[in-house]
């Protein structure tokens, strides 16, 4: 769907393109530094800066250190509540996962589009990125499950107290719902981010097209659309945080299934 004059193109913002317009080919593979890679580096930089500021180890923490400890304590408590005392061991992975997804989501909401020619790119709006994070979580669940319990891990798929007649059917159903987990994990974050940004782009198109159509139509179309954009931006900031939390929470629940089988 190409954009003609007046037609709203909500999908161009998700295009992964090399930064300075030139592709860098190396042995037949395109290894150019893309806008996606730039925003991942910015996410890493922001997270690194945030953690550096909080690692001064004062006994009475200042505000920055208290903020960092707030996040680490939040993830540690979530893991302990969902997995039990062994949950704290997974804090490095789940904390990194949560902070990366949160900061990547928020980076996509930064309004650098006011500078002509630039636009913020949401790293997690691609199924390649979110799918990989989901595969990473799922692989850790499988590795932990099989290294702790061996083949007894398959007893996870036969709930307590099922009649012997139903065990084959229950096993298949439980196995299928287990295998859907990485797909649903990655898809949830991907669609939430993509849908939010498409909605914002469509509303922004209404504002611009309304302004181009004259003062009368501008008052009726552009002003309500702009007010709606402000409200939906606030909602999207909340959704960024909720989706990061849900990803980390579900990862800790799946780890609970692997660590404590029933």
């Amino acid at each position, binding site marked *: 769907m190409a954009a003609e004059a007046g037609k709203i193109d909500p999908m161009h913002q998700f295009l992964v393109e090399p930064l300075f317009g030139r592709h860098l080919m190396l042995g037949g593979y395109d290894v150019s530094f893309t806008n996606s890679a730039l925003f991942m580096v910015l996410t890493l930089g922001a997270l690194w800066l945030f953690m550096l500021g909080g690692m001064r180890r004062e006994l009475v923490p200042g505000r920055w250190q208290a903020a960092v400890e707030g996040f680490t304590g939040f993830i540690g408590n979530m893991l302990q509540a969902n997995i039990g005392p062994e949950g704290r061991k997974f804090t490095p992975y789940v904390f990194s996962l949560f902070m990366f997804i949160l900061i990547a989501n928020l980076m996509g909401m930064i309004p650098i589009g006011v500078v002509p020619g630039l636009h913020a790119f949401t790293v997690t709006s691609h199924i390649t990125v979110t799918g990989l994070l989901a595969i990473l979580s799922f692989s850790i669940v499988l590795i932990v499950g099989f290294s702790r319990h061996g083949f007894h891990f398959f007893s996870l798929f036969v709930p307590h107290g099922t009649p012997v007649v139903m065990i084959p059917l229950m096993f298949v159903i439980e196995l299928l719902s287990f295998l859907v987990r990485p797909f649903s994990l990655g898809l*949830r974050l991907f*669609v*939430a981010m993509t849908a939010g940004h498409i909605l914002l782009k469509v509303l922004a198109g209404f504002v611009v097209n309304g302004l181009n159509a004259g003062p009368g139509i501008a008052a009726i179309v552009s002003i309500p659309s702009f007010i709606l954009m402000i409200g939906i931006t606030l909602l999207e900031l909340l959704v960024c945080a909720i989706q990061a939390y849900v990803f980390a929470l*579900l990862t800790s629940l799946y780890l609970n299934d692997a660590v404590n089988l029933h």
Partner: protein
Amino acid sequence: MDAEAAKLFGAGLAAIGLGLAALGVGNVFGQFLSAALRNPSAADSQQGRLFIGFAAAELLGLLAFVIAMILLFVA
């Protein structure tokens, strides 16, 4: 009906699923709120389960959005 028109029509029908998703998510939060107002001291301990329920209801609705996107931009 030619293929392009049928795809747009199908995408419009898939959007109905998103309205149903709104019903589901509203149900989850509404039940939580009405129960939390009866027993406020127990509300904070169930916050994790609230978000699990929200995620599950939202995902199934967003699958309808995925169908709409596939019809519009992929097929």
